[in-house]
């Protein structure tokens, strides 16, 4: 673990971040190799693109979740925020027939608003843990999503809105390109900006961060707002994918997002975790589901297998770390 060579350039350091996640990556590779051997459909361009597309919603939710977990927090409301922001977009665009651009702005704005609300509840009302505040907003947002159309789904979005979630450039789904852009952006944000570093600092030691002159509350509000924004963006992708907004969209997605972050090597206690690890975590989940689908494993067995693979994937990482400490 220690870099004996001493001086490491900034670039190397980023690469090290990659290598640190080797465990999860090994898990992903092992999983993929196994699936390639088990079914000839797995390693096809078509299928890989499928996986990317299928993982994109979770990838977007997970990156927001990563931010909150880095600060030793959590955001249970992402799935509900996804629902309310897309429902409101549906009302604005489909029901009221307003401009799709405006609709997208509404979607993102609503997401950011609920995220901001989470941040404010946490910092201004000083609720003891984001579990409470986001559990609250999770219920409130879901309730609102159900109320606005009396639980009816909204279909018939204009092409412009469906574009991101639906279209391809060549064989590559645009939703996955979006994910890549977002991830690169967050990678830069977390490693190259002061605020990014503050996020790690707060998660590592909140009191030390505060005494270092960091405006902890401000950073937390930013973090939760971003998580809400990412949930809305995930919603936008989802609307394109399923051609509709519906009030139960994103139900219990928070678990998958958290799992991606943790499988990707982040720590629940804050301060540890990377953007790329999270992506690998999300891909592991997506590949696993895809593989089980291709193998036509029945749903009940899928559950058991998923449980088993999650434990194994993380265990491989534990083994690797233990080995590297020898």
């Amino acid at each position, binding site marked *: 673990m220690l870099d004996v060579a001493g001086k490491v350039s900034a670039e190397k350091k980023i690469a090290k971040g990659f290598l640190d996640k080797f465990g999860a990556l090994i898990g992903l590779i092992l999983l993929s190799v196994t699936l390639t051997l088990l079914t000839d459909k797995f390693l096809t361009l078509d299928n890989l693109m499928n996986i990317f597309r*299928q993982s994109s919603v979770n990838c977007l939710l997970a990156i927001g979740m990563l931010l909150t977990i880095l600060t030793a927090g959590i955001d249970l409301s992402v799935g509900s925020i996804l629902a309310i922001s897309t429902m409101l977009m549906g009302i604005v665009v489909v029901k009221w027939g307003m401009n799709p651009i405006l609709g997208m702005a509404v979607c993102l704005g609503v997401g950011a608003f609920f995220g901001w609300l989470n941040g404010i509840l946490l910092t201004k009302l000083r609720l003891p843990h984001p579990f409470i505040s986001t559990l609250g907003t999770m219920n409130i947002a879901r309730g609102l999503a159900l109320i606005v159309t009396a639980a009816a789904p909204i279909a018939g979005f204009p092409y412009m809105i469906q574009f991101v979630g639906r279209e391809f450039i060549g064989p590559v789904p645009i939703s996955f390109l979006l994910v890549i852009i977002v991830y690169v952006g967050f990678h830069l944000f977390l490693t190259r900006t002061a605020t990014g570093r503050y996020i790690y600092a707060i998660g590592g030691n909140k009191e030390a961060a505060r005494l270092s002159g960091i405006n902890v509350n401000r950073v937390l509000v930013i973090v939760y707002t971003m998580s809400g924004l990412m949930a809305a963006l995930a919603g936008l992708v989802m609307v394109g994918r399923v051609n509709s907004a519906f009030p*139960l969209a994103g139900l219990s997605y928070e678990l998958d997002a958290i799992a991606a972050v943790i499988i990707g090597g982040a720590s629940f206690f804050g301060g540890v975790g990377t953007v790329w690890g999270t992506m690998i975590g999300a891909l592991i989940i997506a590949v696993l589901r895809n593989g089980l689908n*291709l193998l036509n494993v029945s749903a009940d067995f*899928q559950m058991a297998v998923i449980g088993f693979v999650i434990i194994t994937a993380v265990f491989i990482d534990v083994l690797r770390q233990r080995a590297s400490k020898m």
Partner: protein
Amino acid sequence: MKEDGRPKVMVILKTLSSQYWKFVEAGAKEAAKKLNVDVTIVGPSSEAKIDEQISLLEDAITQEPDALVVSPSQPVTVIPAFEMAKKKKIPVLLVDTDADWDDKVTFLGTDNYTAGKKGGEQLASMLKPGDKVAIIAGALGNTAMDHRVKGAKEVLQAKGIKVVAEQPADSDKEKALSVMENILQKNPDIKGVFSANDDMAIGALRALEARKLKIPVIGTDGTIEALESIQAGNLSGTIAQNPYQMGYKGVETALKAIRKEKVSKRIDTGVDVITRKNAQKKMNFLKGLLD
């Protein structure tokens, strides 16, 4: 077409985690055997996992079957995947729950609204105008159950029966029990209960039994547990759909579509109103399927 020349049909259901869907599965399997079709049946871990169902659908299309038989959890959500299937010229059939998509081969099933209406009628037939009833609904946003509740409510109200409580119990037996207990606190004088599925009906029944209240309870679905309860004289009735037929006919019709035979756009698999009179028969049929 598979190497062995058998046509390949993929059946994507809302879930396989309940008996109802196991019956659909049994029907599809039986058809596979009888008609020599290669049938694969899959479903997400719960009906709420809408995204998982879409993925299943996409992954099924990747495998290029000769036909798809789908029961969408949220009808509108499957349309983009259906379009993908269309591009690959894979015919799509819907079972149990319809979707508004012009290029579907057919829809086989009953409609939940009708089932709800029948349930309402059955319940109303045991009551008189002015009686109070309660409705136990599924989780809000569960379209199928919403439709059942809507149908039942309309009929009940049309017959002059008062719906004094309508509460969700998330398709959970224990929650239904709690909800019923609570409703009884407020409305000890209700004369009947309609439940959007059998599990919740059985939960509600428990609450009534505890209060020694003997009033009619009507469920929906026709699970074995419900049939047993009906035979024991507890549950008054259930609106049974024909999941087995949906599965069987789904595959059968898919085969027809593959062979480019003419298929009717709407195939009704019918509902049975089950009461004590015909419960045994239905039970024998269902039990026969599970062996």
